[in-house]
C-alpha cells in the first residue's frame, strides 16, 4: 500500500507542479500573444486603410506593401482576412476586383484553398467560411469538392460558402443532387438559402420542382421573406399537398405577400383537419385578410385548439375594422372566443 501510495503522491505532486507551470506559461503566452496580435492588427489596419483609399495608380503599390508585410505568415493572413471581413459584405461586393488582386498577391486565396484539404474538419469549415465571406469565386470548384465530406459541419459551411458566392445553378445542383445524403437541419438549410447572394427567385425555380417535400418546404419558407409575387402560383399549388409542413410553409408564404387576392385560399385552409394548418392560416390572415375574413375568424376564435383561437383573435383585431367586429364577440356566449379576444385587445393597446 505504502509503495503505491508513494507513486500516487509523486504523480499528483508532479501533476500539480506541471499544471502550475502550465498556468504560468499559458498566462504569459496569452499575454504576449494578445499584445503581439494587437500590434499586427494595428499595422495591418493602417496598410489596409491605405489600400482602401488608394487611387487606381497607387493601388499596386499598396497591395505590394501589404503582401510584403504579410509574407508567408499564416497569422498575418488570418488577421488580414479578419480585417477585410469586418469591412462588411457591401464593401467586399463593390470592391470585388481590387480585392481579388489583393487575395492573389498576398496568397490569401491559395492559403484558404489549401485549408480545404486539411485533415482537420474544423480547418476545412473555417476555410469555407472565409472563402464565402471574402467572395473568392475562383474557389467554387474546390468548395464543391467538399460535398463528399462525411462531416456535417463541413458540408454546412461548404453550402454556406457556395450560397455566398451566389451561383444559383451550382447551389441548386448541390441541393437537389445531395438532398438524400445531406443531413442538415431545416433551419440550417434556410440559413444557407438566406445568405444566397444570387437571384433567389432563379434558385427557387431551378430547384423546387426537382426537390422532395422536405426541401420544397424549406425553399418556400426561405423564399417567403422576400415576398416574390411571381412565386405565388407555387405556393397555391402546394396548399393541396399531403405534407403538413409543406402546406404550412405555403400558407405562411402566401400570407407574407400581404395581398388580399390570396385571402380566399387562406380562408379555405381554415377548414383543414390539422390544427397546425388552421393556426397558420389564421395567423397569415392578419396581413392578407379583409372584412371578408371577419366571420371565419370569429368562428376560429372558438376553435377547440388554443393556438388557433389565439391566432384567429390576433388576426381579427389586426385587420382594419376588425376591432369593432371583435367587440361583438365580447358580448357573445363563446367563452373561449371572448377570452382570446380580450387577451389580444389588451395586448394591442
Amino acid at each position, binding site marked *: 500500500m505504502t509503495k503505491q501510495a508513494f507513486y500516487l503522491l509523486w504523480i499528483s505532486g508532479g501533476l500539480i507542479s506541471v499544471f502550475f507551470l502550465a498556468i504560468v506559461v499559458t498566462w504569459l503566452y496569452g499575454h504576449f500573444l494578445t499584445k503581439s496580435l494587437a500590434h499586427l492588427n494595428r499595422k495591418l489596419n493602417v496598410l489596409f486603410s491605405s489600400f482602401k483609399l488608394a487611387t487606381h495608380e497607387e493601388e499596386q503599390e499598396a497591395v505590394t506593401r501589404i503582401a510584403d508585410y504579410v509574407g508567408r505568415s499564416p497569422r498575418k493572413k488570418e488577421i488580414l482576412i479578419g480585417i477585410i471581413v469586418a469591412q462588411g459584405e457591401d464593401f467586399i461586393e463593390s470592391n470585388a476586383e481590387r480585392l481579388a488582386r489583393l487575395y492573389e498577391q498576398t496568397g490569401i486565396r491559395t492559403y484558404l484553398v489549401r485549408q480545404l484539404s486539411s485533415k482537420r474538419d474544423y480547418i476545412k469549415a473555417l476555410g469555407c467560411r472565409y472563402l464565402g465571406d471574402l467572395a473568392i469565386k475562383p474557389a467554387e470548384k474546390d468548395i464543391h469538392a467538399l460535398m463528399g465530406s462525411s462531416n456535417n459541419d463541413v458540408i454546412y*459551411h461548404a453550402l454556406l460558402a457556395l450560397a455566398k458566392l451566389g451561383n444559383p445553378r451550382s447551389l441548386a445542383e448541390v441541393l437537389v443532387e445531395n438532398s438524400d445524403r445531406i443531413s442538415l437541419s431545416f433551419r440550417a438549410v434556410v440559413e444557407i438559402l438566406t445568405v444566397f447572394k444570387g437571384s433567389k427567385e432563379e434558385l427557387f425555380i431551378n430547384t423546387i420542382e426537382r426537390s422532395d417535400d422536405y426541401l420544397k418546404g424549406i425553399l418556400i419558407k426561405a423564399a417567403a421573406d422576400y415576398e416574390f409575387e411571381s412565386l405565388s402560383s407555387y405556393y397555391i399549388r402546394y396548399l393541396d399537398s399531403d405534407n403538413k409542413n409543406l402546406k404550412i410553409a405555403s400558407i405562411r408564404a402566401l400570407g407574407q405577400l400581404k395581398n388580399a387576392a390570396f385571402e380566399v385560399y387562406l380562408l379555405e385552409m381554415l377548414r383543414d383537419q390539422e390544427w397546425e394548418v388552421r393556426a397558420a392560416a389564421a395567423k397569415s390572415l392578419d396581413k392578407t385578410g379583409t372584412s371578408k375574413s371577419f366571420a371565419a375568424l370569429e368562428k376560429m376564435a372558438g376553435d377547440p385548439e388554443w393556438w388557433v383561437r389565439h391566432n384567429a383573435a390576433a388576426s381579427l383585431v389586426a385587420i382594419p375594422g376588425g376591432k369593432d367586429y371583435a367587440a361583438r364577440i365580447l358580448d357573445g356566449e363563446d367563452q373561449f372566443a371572448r377570452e382570446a379576444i380580450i387577451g389580444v385587445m389588451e395586448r394591442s393597446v
Partner: protein
Amino acid sequence: MYYFWKFILYFSEFCIIYTIAINIFYNGQMLISVADLFGYLKKMKASDYKRYVNSKNMVPISILVPAYNEENTIVDNIKSLLALNYYEYEIIIVNDGSTDSTRDKIIREFDLVQISQPVKKSLETKEILGLYRNPKYERLILVDKVNGGKADALNAGINLSTYPIFASIDADSILENDALIKLTMLFVEDPETIAVGGIVRIANGSVIKEGKLVKMEIPKNKIAVFQIVEYLRAFLTGRTSLSKLNSILIISGAFGAFNKSVVIECGGYKTNTIGEDMDIIMKLHKKMLDEKKTYKIKFLADPICWTQAPESLKDLRVQRRRWQIGLFDNLLQYKSMLLNPKYGKVGMVTIPYYWLFELIGPVVEFLGYIFIPLAYLFGLLEFNSFLIFFLIAFLLGSTLSMGSILLEQISFRKYTTFGDTMRLVLFALLENLGYRQLTILYRIEGLLKFNKSRHSWGTIKREKFKGSEKGTSA
C-alpha cells in the same frame, strides 16, 4: 473489541482506496473535458454564430425567470435580459408570491400595467393573480401568482410562453449578451436536442452596470473565491465530460434551455421538491429512454450566466444542504434507473457515479477523517500510510482544481490579470485545507435532515450586484 479494531483498520483502508478512486475518476473526467472543450472551441472558431443574432430564422425563445423575494437583483437581471443579442424572444418574470417588493419594483421600473390575457393551461399551477405588460417593453411580461415554489413558477411560465424553446434563468443571475444565441444554436443544429445547460460563473466582485458585466474581478470575500474554483471544476470538467457521454443529470436551474413540448409531455417541473432542476433532467432521460427515442441533453461551457455566490458561511450552509437534499431526493425518486441496462450510460455509469461519489462521498470522506487518525493512534496504521492519505487527499484534490484553472486559461481566459490567476491557484490549493471539509459537513447535515427539509428551500441573502446602483463608480 477485536472486530472493532478490524473494522477501523479495514474501513481506513477502504477510505484510502475510495479517496484515490474518486480523485482518479474526477481527473479522468477532466481529460474527457479537455478533448470536448477543444472540439467546441474549434467549432466556434469556424462558426459564424453572430450572423444568427439578427436572423429571423433563429428559433424564437421564451425566457422564464421565477422570482421569490429578489428585490435586490431582479431589475438588473431584467435589464440584462432586455439587452440580449437575439432576434425574437420574450421574457416572462414569474413573481412567486414574494413577500418583499419584488413585484412592485418591477412594475415601477418598467411602468407595467395589469392586463387580462387568457393562459393556455398545459400544466397545473397555483392561481395566477395578474399579468402585467408595457407596450414599450413588448418582450417583457410579469406574472404575479400565489406562492407555489420555483417549480410551480416555472410551470406557470411555461403555460404563458409562446415559443417552442424556453430558457429558465435565476432571478439573481445575469446573462452574457451572446449566451442565448450560443445555447439555442444547438437546438437549431441538432433537432434531437431537448435540453441544453450553460455554464454558471460567479459574479461576486465583478462590476455589473445596467445589467451588463463590465469588469471582471476576483472578489475579496474568501468564501466566494473558493466557490469560483469549485464552479470552474464542476462546470468545466464535471458537466462537460458528462455531456460528452450524453448523460448529464443536472442542468443548473440558474441557466438552461429546454424543448417546451417535451417538458410538457413529461408533466413539467415537479413541485414540492427542492431539486427541480435535476428532476426535470432525470425525467427527460427516463421518458426518452423508456420510449426508445434518440435525444441529446447537452452542456455548453461557453454561454455564460453570472450568478451570485453566498458570501457567508450561514448562506453557504443553506445552499449546500439544499443541494445535497435535492440530490438525495432525486436519486431516490429515480432509483429504478440505477444499474438498469435499459437506461444505458445514464443508468449504468452516471447514476451509480452520483450515488457512489456525490451522495455517499461526503460521508466516506468525513468518516475517513475520523477513522484514519484513530487507526493510526491505535497503532493499526503506519504513520506513512496515515500521512500519505492526507497528502493524497490534498494533492489529488488540488490537481483537479489546478487542471480546471488551466483549462479556463487555455479556453475562455475570463480572468485576465496575472494576480487574479495566481489568486485562483492559491485558493485551489487552500480549498482542501478546511473549506472542502466544511462543505462536507454541510452536505452530511443535508442528508441527516433529509426527511425534515426535503420540501423547504431555505433563504439565502442576495446582495445588489457591485456597481448596479446609480452613481456607484466602477
